[in-house]
């Protein structure tokens, strides 16, 4: 019995340090990704990260989705590396099918490679989606099995936008907060539901669930706004509407003070 109790204690303390991920994301089954790992981790500086890790056996690739809240400052070295005048990638944020950034800073893939990584930050909240391909050897070099890049980058964009929304909700309402708590926090901060607001202005709405992009049409005007982004397209003109669009339980929420000026 003593041995059993000791073993139980070991596993309990381990589970407390490595609890389950505090968010859920839906990936269509036909994409072939199977959940392999679900973790929530708090480091010694109280930074929190939740992540889901998936494996796809058909092409031997892996996919990781992280949502995090930082409570310690980023190191000077990290800032220097990311903002290097020659190789910095902080502003490299538009390599996505929608061509719209996510968060306030971050980066997206610069080209087809053996992996793709999208990093999006909103102040101390962050979302990170990484997809790794494996390779075989060809003429003395690794050749990555990235034939599905185009459809994968679309999935990665979709997940990154959803993860950004979750990160913002956690920032506003607390880590692991409920949908209701998130909604209250958004209302307190002046967010309104985007769909009904645009409809009240006479727009019709269509929704692209993969790009997480809503298209609003009225007469000759078309406005495109994407979840997790403070950019949008007014016709073909890229504009900044000043605050992130936050997705919550299938609804888009936005601050509309600047968007009002977009409407003809």
């Amino acid at each position, binding site marked *: 019995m003593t041995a059993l109790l000791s073993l139980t204690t070991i596993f309990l303390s*381990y589970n407390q340090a490595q609890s389950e991920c505090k968010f859920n994301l839906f990936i269509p089954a036909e994409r072939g990704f199977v959940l392999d790992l679900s973790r929530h981790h708090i*480091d*010694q500086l109280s930074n929190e990260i939740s992540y889901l890790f998936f494996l796809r056996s058909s092409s031997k690739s*892996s996919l990781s989705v992280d949502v995090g809240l930082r409570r310690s400052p980023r190191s000077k070295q990290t800032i220097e*590396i990311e903002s*290097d*005048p020659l190789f910095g990638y902080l502003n490299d944020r538009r390599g996505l099918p929608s061509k719209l950034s996510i968060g306030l800073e971050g980066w997206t893939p610069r080209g087809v490679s053996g*992996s793709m990584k999208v990093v999006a930050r909103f102040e101390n909240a962050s979302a990170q989606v990484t997809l790794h391909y*494996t390779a075989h050897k060809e003429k003395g070099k*690794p050749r990555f099995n990235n034939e599905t890049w185009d459809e994968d980058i679309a999935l990665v964009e979709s997940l990154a936008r959803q993860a950004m929304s979750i990160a913002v909700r956690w920032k506003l309402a607390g880590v692991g907060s409920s949908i209701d708590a998130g909604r209250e926090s958004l209302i307190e901060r002046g967010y309104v539901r985007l769909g009904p607001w645009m409809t009240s202005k006479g727009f019709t709405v269509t929704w692209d669930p993969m790009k997480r992009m809503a298209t609003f049409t009225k007469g000759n005007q078309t406005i495109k706004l994407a979840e997790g982004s403070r950019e949008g397209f007014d016709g073909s003109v890229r504009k900044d509407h000043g605050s992130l669009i936050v997705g919550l339980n299938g609804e888009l929420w936005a601050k509309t003070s600047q968007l009002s000026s977009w409407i003809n």
Partner: protein
Amino acid sequence: MAHALPPISARDVDFTGNHPMRNVDGPYADPEVTWSSSGTEAAPAISIDIDGNLSVKFEHYNNSDKSGTGVFQVYFAELLLPDSTTVPLQVNGNSGASASVSIPAYGSFWSPNFQISGWDPWIHGGQLRIGYLVDTTGIPGLVGYGMTREWRFLVNLEPPVGHMATVWHELLEETTAYAWGEDDPTQAGKDLTFGLYYAQRFAYPGQENLTSNWFDESNSFKLSTLLRTSGWVTGNCYDVAVYLHLLFESQGLSNEPLLRLCQRGPYDLRAFLSNDICPIGSDSTIPSNYNPIAWTNHCVVLFDGKIFDACLALQKAPDLSGYWNPPASWTSTQHWYVDHGQEFTGVAKRFIQPSEIISFDPPQFNFDLHLPHEMTQSEDTTFIFGGIL
């Protein structure tokens, strides 16, 4: 008709002196084998260093009304090596040992501790096999018990340190394979560097994508997800250096901070052109795989004041001889740049001139490959990562 009494059954085994161990799924239980209602749960491996002090004791259960004093006899211990040879080990300094043990009725009992020693003093691994008997001759009616048990057994150079203080089994198996037979820290470090470079595990992503792939937003290295991703994966110099650092730590090699090699240069671009390098993942025996690359910094492992760089291979050693391998245990100067007059060796070649930069976003270059080599000593700093995840 007489009914045979149930046999004595095995429960726990407890090793002491071995290193705390875990794998990608979490910590291993200690004691190493734990009896439970669902059966026996065995930790997959035992880790010990070459000077380690390993002892073991066994727990059994007597499911009968007979009690008394028996004899617990460990009659052999050996290490079965991959080539099917065996190394005999000592038990309390002899080929075997025995001691009396009190066996209660309907209760569990532990054997005394037995000291195991005699494995070879270099990095290696095998199957630890221990044969024992519970002799119950002195207890009429009680059937004795005996068996041989096996555990994966890995011999470290030194006790694991730093992030590997609870050593990850996967990394220990990897380093044991790379540095098999070594008893010298520097040579083990070279083996780990070469082993990782040639492992077909990391592939440098190339000029178009220099970002690190295995760090989270808190600067922690995502070892769990890396180990769960099989085969070749992309990784830049920081990914490779941190992983090599963890391999060093798993063998107990000193955990000096990682080193960032930086260079400001006369144009204040912080950019330099490398020597012809063959990045990790490519075949270093093929000359066409060696090309220059533009960098502003580079991360390497520092151990005992020398540099170990598994991210790349160079064609020439510091003495101008043919090399075609990753730099390992090179001085900072040897690794960075040595001017031999008409020739030079090392990682760095010269500063990038502003006229060679076509675009900053994305970075695009038109290197003038006829410009002479010209470099100064790098401005090195340490790189601290936030732990492992």
